[in-house]
């Protein structure tokens, strides 16, 4: 199992370690204390660690560590190219405000394929996808997606602008990448970003006017994950429910059986068993707290036909923790998971969620949490 977790929070990046055997988890390091860290990526290929640091006044910056988080260096941050002279503004269809050509937030960060050492994908608000081929020394906006005509219909969910938060690189073919956009559906490239296709057939948006309910390119997938061992199996925690695909995103089926509710942000899928997945439900979109004040994790082992509600070791009275989309992770063993919450708690399990242990209850609000795999 993986014995290190990086936790990106509202006020810093924290390292959690544990020894082998029964040695408990402990906070072993802190970096960027006081500064928002929107996302962290321990690269499973080479052990480098990447962190997006979002200074309120000074803009978003990007840092990397070659020594598993012991020391950090600032490297290049994705920068939008100059807006072409005379280019017409794309305006948010909901609020009419122009979508800027400015980096607002780094919201998705993933390593490229095993055959692409040093390659990174980065999803951002206001909707640009970037790629680096040199471990963040330089970045380039993926213009083919940014220039997609349907981007004009994308809009922000809980954010001011649309954003790319989920990036799945197919383990069978690094050119095959699937991204989730809030609110802009699911987009797939099979040629490393030269061309794109929207693939959200079967999803529906209960919050849009009926005639636009099934519009694929305005769906709001809160989080998209892909089973590494069976990459045609994908799960989405959507704004109004859970959806699953078993044909590589060609079609999606609603999973309405999640207990105690179908609303949430985070989802994790087992590394080899595509039918086993975990969610951290909240009441609903306008009431983003655990059902009845009890923190629980919902687990299916049969592809969504049924769910176990896991609560052993989790607070069951007056708990108002919300788990954001990047704050649930599973390690490569498939037995160990961890999740963090908006109230600064982190819990781990070594038995797929049958029982949980609390690591801390007093970190800043958790944005992103990832196991280090090397």
């Amino acid at each position, binding site marked *: 199992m993986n014995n290190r977790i990086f936790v990106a929070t509202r006020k810093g990046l924290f390292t959690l370690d544990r020894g082998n055997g029964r040695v408990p988890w402990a906070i072993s390091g802190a970096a960027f204390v006081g500064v928002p860290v929107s996302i962290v990526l321990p690269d499973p290929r080479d052990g480098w660690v990447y962190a997006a640091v979002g200074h309120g006044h000074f*803009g978003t910056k990007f840092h990397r560590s070659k020594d598993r988080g012991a020391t950090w260096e600032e490297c290049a941050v994705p920068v939008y190219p100059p807006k072409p002279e005379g280019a017409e503004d794309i305006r948010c269809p909901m609020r009419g405000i122009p979508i800027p050509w400015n980096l607002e937030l780094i919201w998705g960060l993933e390593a490229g394929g095993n055959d692409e050492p040093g390659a990174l994908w980065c999803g951002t608000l206001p909707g640009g996808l970037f790629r680096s081929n040199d471990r963040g020394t330089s970045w380039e906006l993926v213009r083919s997606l940014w220039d997609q005509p349907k981007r004009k219909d994308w809009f922000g969910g809980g954010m001011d602008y649309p954003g790319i938060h989920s990036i799945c690189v197919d383990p069978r073919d690094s050119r095959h990448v699937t991204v989730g956009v809030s609110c802009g559906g699911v987009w797939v490239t099979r040629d490393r970003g030269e061309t794109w296709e929207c693939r959200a057939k079967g999803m529906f948006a209960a919050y849009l006017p009926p005639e636009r309910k099934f519009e694929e390119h305005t769906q709001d997938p809160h989080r998209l994950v892909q089973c590494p061992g069976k990459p045609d199996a994908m799960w989405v925690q959507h704004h109004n429910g859970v959806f699953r695909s078993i044909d590589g995103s060609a079609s999606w089926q609603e999973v309405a059986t999640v207990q105690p509710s179908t609303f949430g942000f985070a989802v994790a899928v087992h590394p080899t068993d595509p039918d086993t997945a975990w969610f951290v439900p909240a009441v609903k979109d306008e009431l983003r707290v655990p059902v009845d004040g009890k923190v629980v994790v919902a687990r299916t082992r049969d592809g969504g036909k049924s769910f176990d509600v896991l609560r052993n070791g989790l607070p069951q009275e007056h708990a108002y923790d919300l788990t954001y989309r990047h704050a649930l992770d599973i390690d490569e063993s498939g037995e160990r998971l961890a999740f963090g919450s908006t109230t600064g708690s982190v819990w781990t399990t070594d038995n797929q969620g049958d029982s949980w242990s609390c690591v801390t209850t007093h970190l800043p609000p958790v944005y992103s949490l990832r196991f280090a795999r090397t």
Partner: protein
Amino acid sequence: MIEVTFTANIQRYVPCPPETVVGRTVIEVLNSVFALNEKARGYVLDDQGGLRKHMVVFVNGQPVRDRTTLSDAVPDGAEVYVMQALSGG
């Protein structure tokens, strides 16, 4: 010559010592500073070269009017301050 001073709060992330530079407009003055301290550029200006949303530049005590192209004139001998736009409580 123009005296340029940066907020103390930026120094934790990128050292920005006071500089004496030349320039007739705000952008010319800032570009003169960034020529000496390139890393500071992205902390003050956004991707399109405008002033970051939560930053402000004062010229002789007055906030600049043109935050997009930073074309406000800077008289010789002026004092320029680069700092956070303060808001909230």
